[in-house]
């Protein structure tokens, strides 16, 4: 079959603004997009640059945008990718391009991985005997370990597109591993560091990362697991801790959420500036009879059972 491969060309020296080039190729029906790129490089243009290692859908090195959507080129059949005989290829959207479809992995992926210190730290002076890790735990860790750092989850991330400083799901998934590993002894320090600005509390848990992950690692679930650990230990930024505590108190005492109380307590009862910040929206909501009055919140009929569930969980978590 005949396809036109419309590729973004970029060379920081000779073509700083980038341009597009179309290659017309006769390909096998069962070819993948990566196969076609290799064919073009071999037969038409040796200067065309792209990444691709295993060619079998394992490593994720060939992450690129196929018709605007992040894909692994080696997993994308040409027959499926082509639209009216054309396939457009671009590098991932959030990265610094190096040449054509090759992008800078250092700044975007590896610097953020490194920032999470993704290695196990035993308590000093180190272990005195063999660590025994349960099979169940190993299975959980192995699932997270199958991440190949392809960056697809970051590509799908709703937050990174508006704020590149956010750690992002790829790095946070990597950060999950030592936190979940019983051999690590600095979990509270890790969770505190991950709570800092642009860390795990900036995640909107939209599950885009999970949808994008080709390995089924479920990065959003890993981030939520980090947050579950932090909530249990009362760790977060002061604002996050106030918000989580107020939310939990409200559900524990009445069975459901006192939203007005949550707004006030998240700002902090003594935070005059923060409380003043709420006034315009609160006043408007009151005027529209939209905002409930804080603390005048009736208990749900089954609230004693919700309280019992909370108390048991709190006791077991200690």
């Amino acid at each position, binding site marked *: 079959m005949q396809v036109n491969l419309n590729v973004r060309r970029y060379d920081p020296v000779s073509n700083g603004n980038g341009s597009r080039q179309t290659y017309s190729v006769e390909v096998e029906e069962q070819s993948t997009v990566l196969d076609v790129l290799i064919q073009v490089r071999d037969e038409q243009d040796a200067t065309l640059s792209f990444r691709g290692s295993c060619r079998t859908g394992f490593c994720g090195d060939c992450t690129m945008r196929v018709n605007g959507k992040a894909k692994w080129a080696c997993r994308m059949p040409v027959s499926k990718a082509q639209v009216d005989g054309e396939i457009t290829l671009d590098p991932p959207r959030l990265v610094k391009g190096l040449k054509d479809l090759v992008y800078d992995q250092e700044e975007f992926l590896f610097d953020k991985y490194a920032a999470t210190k993704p290695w196990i730290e035993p308590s000093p002076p180190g272990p005195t005997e063999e660590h025994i890790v349960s099979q169940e735990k190993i299975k959980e860790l192995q699932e997270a370990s199958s991440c190949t750092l392809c960056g697809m989850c970051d590509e799908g991330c*709703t*937050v990174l597109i*508006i*704020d590149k400083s*956010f750690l992002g799901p790829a790095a946070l998934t990597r950060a999950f591993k030592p936190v979940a590993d019983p051999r690590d002894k600095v979990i509270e320090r890790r969770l505190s560091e991950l709570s800092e600005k642009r860390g795990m*509390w*900036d*995640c*909107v*848990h*939209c*599950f*885009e990362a*999970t*949808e994008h992950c080709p390995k089924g690692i*479920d990065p*959003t679930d890993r981030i*939520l697991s980090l*947050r*579950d650990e932090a*909530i*249990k230990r009362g760790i977060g*930024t002061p*604002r*996050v801790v106030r*918000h*989580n505590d107020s*939310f*939990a108190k409200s*559900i524990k005492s009445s*069975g*459901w*959420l*006192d*939203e*007005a109380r949550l707004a006030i307590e*998240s700002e902090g009862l003594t935070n005059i500036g923060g409380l003043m910040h709420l006034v315009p*929206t609160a006043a*408007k*909501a009151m005027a*529209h*009879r*939209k*905002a*409930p009055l804080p603390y005048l919140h009736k208990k*749900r*009929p*089954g*609230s004693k*059972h*919700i309280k*019992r*569930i*909370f108390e*048991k*969980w709190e006791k077991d*978590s200690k």
Partner: protein
Amino acid sequence: MRYAFYPGCVAKGGCPELYPAAIKVAEKLGIELFEMKDVGCTGAGVLSREVSDPINARTLAKAEAMGLPIMTICSTCQGCLMQANHRLVIDPEYRAKINREYLAEEGLEYRGTTDVKHFLWVLDEDYGLDKLQEMVVNPLEELNVAAFYGCYLRRPPEVVVPKGKESRKVSLENAIKALGGNVVATKGKGKCCGFPILYPNERNSLEMCGTHTLEAKDKGADAMVTPCPLCHLELDGTQSRAEQHKGKKINLPVLHLPQLVGLALGFSPKEMEMQRHLVSTAPVEEKAKRKAEV
């Protein structure tokens, strides 16, 4: 058609217009709702799942005892209940542990058979959009409406959009069409509204709210419709702050799904309690009313 009705906290709290609108619309359509009054909040993605899973298991067990599927009117409630249900159904050992440790004391047991459906899916899959179209007395022909789903009605796909339920990806647009409205296609329809980070990172939150509402406005939408009251709190409630953040006037009315259905079924904007919104719904009322008067 009978459901155990789980209205959620926000429909009676920060969006008090949603609960009465949903009740009136369901009654008009002949959907029987049995409200679950003695159950807890789903956790909304804020509580640790270690405590929200038992609370949600309790809700699911109570619906199971009623012999009814659950109907929600909130994407977030839907997602949290559905994800908890998924964990409890695929892992019988986990379910047994929750039953033993948390539910047994109350004499409850969850066997894993409860189905949880958002009102949107009830309309699309159970009631039928053809039948809904037949019930329309005031087609919203002049109204250009952008859909905004809320994350939890779209992802994670293996939980929310299982095989055979692919229509869920376009059910909101299909509902708008069934009501006679014109769909305004947007890129942001399935993205996050920004509400979950309103407290931790207001700047990013307002950026998301402003981006989505501006996109819809620029593409000619008269209104946006959402099946999620938390998205409504963001897209309607913080829209004026998003305007300041973006430095642009937006002024896009945002309707709850039951309100849009209600207008097409002949309810007045007041009956749908649209006066409670922070962004004026006057332009929508004008277009919906004009048709009704013809």
